[in-house]
């Protein structure tokens, strides 16, 4: 049994089924990320004074990731163009590049997560506050070793741009520590929404990588049976990937630059 318009466009609507389905899915994705962006703005506007941090994220790495994802969007576009021109070799090349760029993006994201996860804020029993990266190998059961700095007031922690360069190794006895918390989602609302949004976005990137890996590998068998159907699949997967890029285009300024 054949379902109509799986490959060719319906004359009056001008699209084939999967394309309309993908756009409908993307519409729902717009609302999903729209909900999260709305939450971000809502929470940020309503944040109590002196609680919203700035400049905590690594802008060069974020910029690099933006460019990587933009480049991968272009390579997907070219992979689709190659399919339309019936050039399987070019399709393989560009999809391979997309896969590579997607994986590098995820790698960099993973490094950024790790960087935040090992970043600690220590509150001592005498009221002093230290922040910095945990030096794992040197920390013992008695003392914590941080590569970081002392601050007098928690508010000083909020601006991440001014603190760089003045960090040194601090050894703090565990007995003095009142509270020790890493920059995990629970640390504050900014980190919570940072992890949630980029995490969900990362899952989408991962999903896109899996889809492209399939199309690059076993899925490309369809090429020899029905190149047009395969081209449609590449186009639809590309639409998804471009949407993932679009989300990052807004995530980057919203989280890294403001």
């Amino acid at each position: 049994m054949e379902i109509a318009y799986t490959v060719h466009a319906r004359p009056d609507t001008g699209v084939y089924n999967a394309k309309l389905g993908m756009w409908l899915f993307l519409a729902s994705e717009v609302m999903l990320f729209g909900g999260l962006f709305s939450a971000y703005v809502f929470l940020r506007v309503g944040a109590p004074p002196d609680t919203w941090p700035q400049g905590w994220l690594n802008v060069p790495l974020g910029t690099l990731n933006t460019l990587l994802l933009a480049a991968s969007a272009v390579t997907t576009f070219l992979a689709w163009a190659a399919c339309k021109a019936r050039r399987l070799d070019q399709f393989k090349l560009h999809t391979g590049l997309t896969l590579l760029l997607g994986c590098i993006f995820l790698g960099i994201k993973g490094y950024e997560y790790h960087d935040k996860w090992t970043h600690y804020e220590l509150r001592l029993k005498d009221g002093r506050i230290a922040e910095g990266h945990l030096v794992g190998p040197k920390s013992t059961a008695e003392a914590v070793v941080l590569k970081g700095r002392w601050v007098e007031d928690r508010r000083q922690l909020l601006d991440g741009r001014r603190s760089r360069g003045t960090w040194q190794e601090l050894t703090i006895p565990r007995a003095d520590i009142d509270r020790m918390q890493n920059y995990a989602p629970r640390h504050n609302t900014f980190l919570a929404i940072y992890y949630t949004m980029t995490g969900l976005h990362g899952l989408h990137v991962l999903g896109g990588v899996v889809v492209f890996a399939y199309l690059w590998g076993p899925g490309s068998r369809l090429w020899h049976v029905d190149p047009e159907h395969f081209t449609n699949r590449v186009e639809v997967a590309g639409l998804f990937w471009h949407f993932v890029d679009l989300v990052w285009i807004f995530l980057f300024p919203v989280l890294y630059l403001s």
Partner: protein
Amino acid sequence: MVQATTRSIEFPAREFHGPAHATGFWRTYVFSTDHKVIGIQYGLTALCFLLLGFFLILAMRWQIAHPGEPIPLVGWFLEKVLGSPASRGIMSPDLYNMFGAMHGTIMVFLAIVPLAVGAFGNYLVPLMIGANDMAFPRLNMISYQLYFLGGVVMLASFLIPGGAAQAGWTSYSPLATVIPTDGQTFWLIGMVLLITSSLLGSINIITTIVQLRAPGLTWMRLPFFVWAQLAASFLLLLAFPPLEAAGIMQLMDKVAGTSFFLPTGLAVGGATAQISGGGSPLLWQHLFWFLAHPEVYVLILPAMGIVAEVLANNIRKPLWGYRTMVYAVLTLSFLSFIVWAHHMYLTGMGTRISTFFQTTTIIISIPSVILLTCLLMSLWGGSIRIHTPMLFALAFLPMFGIGGLTGLPLGFAASDIQLHDTYYVIGHFHYVVAPGTIFALFAGIYHWFPKLTGRRMNEFWGRVHFWCSFLFMNAVFLPMFAQGFAGMLRRMADGGLSYSARISPGVEGTLSDFILGLNNYILWAAVGLGLAQLPFIINLFWSIWRGERVQGDNPWQATTLEWQTPTPPPHGNFLRLPQVYRGPYEYGRLDEDGDYLPQDRPPVAHTR
């Protein structure tokens, strides 16, 4: 509007490959990609959940009417399965909250929507538009499986230590987050599965309607039911994702210790909570109601579609104002996205924003009234056939009318202050959904049963089912308006006893003995309502194998395409590709041999 013309469309040649016995049992009945099998799977699962949701509320009604007394008949069973929350067969307040939260969740997300959209939409939409299946059959199967999995997660949450979610179907934070059990986590995971399932389903339905209409089936020739499904699917598609976002955030609050919905300085159990704070409980409410208000229309629109089909078929004349109804349904679904904060008048909203939401709320009653009026006006001058499906469809009209009109006082902030969170709200909402939507669904089941099975359901027991349900539904929900006016709050595990004149005599504003006594009356009406479903359940299963066989494929003399197929429709639905020549409701034609013209019968040149 897309102008579909018959001549420009060339369909690929399709042929019918014979019945489905070529595939094995599992592929035919369990992992089927046939939209009809999936529709029936949805239907049976959702009916089971409907019954379960009803049992939950029955137990709660006992507790409301007789607080602290052991539940008769099932008390020992609840204790055995659920443990301490039901010790000695008595419903503890915790258990009451669990049942309350799960009654709402199960009824809305696991029973009515899957029945209205999953079952009826899946089964009927491809048939009505002349397609051989849904646009994405495998996605359709996955959608059902995710729904099933979501249901399993929800059910499993009853059995974990601490039990199921207890914060109401609305799951307002911070309450939902700070209740120290994993029930809420299960609820959220279940919801994410259900949301994903309904997203896939709605993508499928919309694509099918837009892409797979038979040649000649232009937009204004679509049966109203298809329009209603299209609108409902759009609501699901665009309104559910923000709740998914909110669900993910609440899951983070619950699991990762974040504070999206937890404000600074939150105290739990007398101590300041160890959280970073800075979140907003109102954010949850915004995101939740952004879904949950359109969801109400997801519940009601397919029901209206069913009623329109059943009515048109049984009044033997075209629906009055078909175009108007289509535009009303589109307006309704558009407006339903911008009325949500009328659920939040009492959160301390400003006057300007509340004026905005009052205005949109009152505006949205206009298309609803148009729809109801068109259906009512259609009756005028019809040659009405009365049988079970028609009785249910007819009863829908006044019942939905009561439900809709009692909503008006809730739409105004001033009167909502008195009525908010009382039994009045429960009465209003249930009039829309129980005698409204559920009656329409019953009408649909009785109406399309001959197409599914080739047999008719028993007419006598159908009428018994109808009249008893009609009587007891009203007996259950009508007194709630009085209770609500008297100020009886919903979600009280003792049914208002603590605020009654029995506990504090002589205090002004307490609930009188009469209002409290209504609880007992409602309980027995609810028991009666439950008993009234027995004829239906027996009739349904008995008729599958033993019912009276129908003559021909089109026993109701209907015009729409789903009746122009073999009975039951084979895999692939149509023996030949239908070509549509006219609108959906060509009834009462005196110039033809019958009094109706099916959509796909070629026009004949008149010899007279």
